[in-house]
């Protein structure tokens, strides 16, 4: 067996390993900011990537269209049944919207937690080693995307922006295992019940809604939306549906499992929502809550 570890090589290897460990720990410490060379690489690679992913999405789009064409008859029957409901609902919504606007005018309050500017965007890549739940989209700082903006599909909330470069941004999905990833949520049925989405149950594939006041009743099937009180996300984006309610480890507050409305597995077009009211450092995402004078009582 030849000697492939001569002295020179051994030293080189050791220096290499030390350098590597230093580099890894350096980049782990500060992952939410990209330095200028990193941004440059990301933009260049992202530019190339969009050349490859856009044609693919066109092809998958054609397949999806064919698939939905095959289901047309069934779907049409079901939709027709719901159409009548829809018409009356629409009239109701219009009525309420006008009333809302008038009332706002009366009290002189134009700003609204619900209002947001949508930025349409295409997913150009998903982190291929799927250890972390991240996707990369083709809109960046130039288009007005900022860190911490909410990202959703037409079905519901899917995540938030964690990193931006001039032409791309990275989105961390709700299904992440990151313990600092929180979303302030509300169950609005007859009364509003607040809670925090904290964590994702890998086995059940469901989000965990914690810190619900035990005085309120939460039922299976109720819809969970963002509350807008976390400081970043606009109000009223659908997160999912309650599938099970239990009490938490300490028995002080309730805990609900929420089945996400949006599917995280195949994503192509997403909407980034830029909240109209200026964001504050609240509970959404991994913020520090420094802007909240009265922090939410730490339940755990």
């Amino acid at each position, binding site marked *: 067996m030849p000697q*492939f570890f001569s002295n020179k090589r051994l030293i080189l290897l050791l220096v290499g390993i030390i350098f*590597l*460990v230093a*580099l*890894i720990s*350096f*980049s*782990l410490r500060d*992952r939410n900011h*990209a330095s200028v060379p*990193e941004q440059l*690489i*990301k933009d260049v*690679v*992202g530019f*190339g*990537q969009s*050349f*490859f*992913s856009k044609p*693919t999405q066109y092809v998958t789009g054609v397949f999806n269209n064919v698939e939905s064409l095959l289901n047309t008859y069934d779907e049409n029957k079901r939709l027709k049944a719901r159409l009548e409901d829809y018409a009356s609902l629409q009239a109701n919504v219009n009525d309420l919207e006008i009333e809302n606007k008038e009332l706002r005018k009366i009290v002189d309050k134009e700003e609204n937690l619900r209002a947001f500017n949508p930025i349409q965007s295409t*997913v*150009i*890549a*998903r*982190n*291929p*080693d*799927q*250890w*972390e739940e*991240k996707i*990369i989209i083709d809109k960046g700082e130039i288009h007005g995307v900022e860190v911490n903006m909410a990202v959703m599909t037409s079905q519901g909330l899917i995540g938030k922006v964690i*990193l931006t470069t001039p032409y791309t941004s*990275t989105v961390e999905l709700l299904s992440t*295992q*990151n313990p600092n990833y929180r979303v302030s949520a509300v169950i609005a049925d007859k009364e509003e019940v607040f809670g925090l989405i904290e964590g994702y149950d*890998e086995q059940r*594939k469901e989000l965990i809604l914690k810190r619900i006041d035990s005085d309120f009743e939460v039922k299976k099937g109720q819809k969970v939306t963002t509350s807008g009180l976390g400081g970043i996300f606009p109000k009223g984006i659908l997160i999912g549906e309650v599938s099970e309610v239990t009490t938490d480890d300490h028995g002080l507050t309730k805990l609900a499992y929420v089945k996400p409305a949006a599917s995280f*597995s*195949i*994503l*192509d077009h997403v909407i980034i929502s830029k909240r109209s009211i200026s964001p504050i450092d609240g509970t959404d995402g991994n913020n520090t809550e420094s802007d909240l004078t009265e922090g939410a009582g730490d339940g755990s």
Partner: protein
Amino acid sequence: MIRFLVIIISVLLFYMEPIFGLFSPIELQGDFYVLVPRFLIMYLIFVSIYYDRKRAMLYGLIFGLLYDVFFIDIIGLYSFIYPLMCLVASLIAKYIHQHLLVATILTLVLVALVELLLFLFYTFIGIKSMTYTEFFQFNLIPTMIANLVFILMFGWGFKYILLNRFKQKALLLQK
């Protein structure tokens, strides 16, 4: 032409990986199976076996760095693992018969090693909490099946191109 083909294929595979990543995870009867495309490293292992070890390690370093910066924001992870795998492959290749089947098996073993290393790393830094059984059932086995299909389809093509390039270079050196 064949001269540039070696690098063109690596660039193509680098860009194809995240696109195949978009189709994963696959849901089967309520369970999610993660398929990780590892096309580039399989190709680079072929390069180091059939063509040139140094070239393979250099490509591994460059593409690993791009991968680190673009996708995972931890610099030094793939840019270490990719060249390391190329080195290991070429060291082993000296002692074995360079038949396509042997090369394929070696490649698959090394890809499984890459997955295992990454699993250990991510568990170590605490990004993912997963048991070994879950990792084997939902990540490793589906990933290996997907990559096996890929290498069975394209392995002979890679070998053909790389050996041609190798011969071409040997001829140039003789002149």
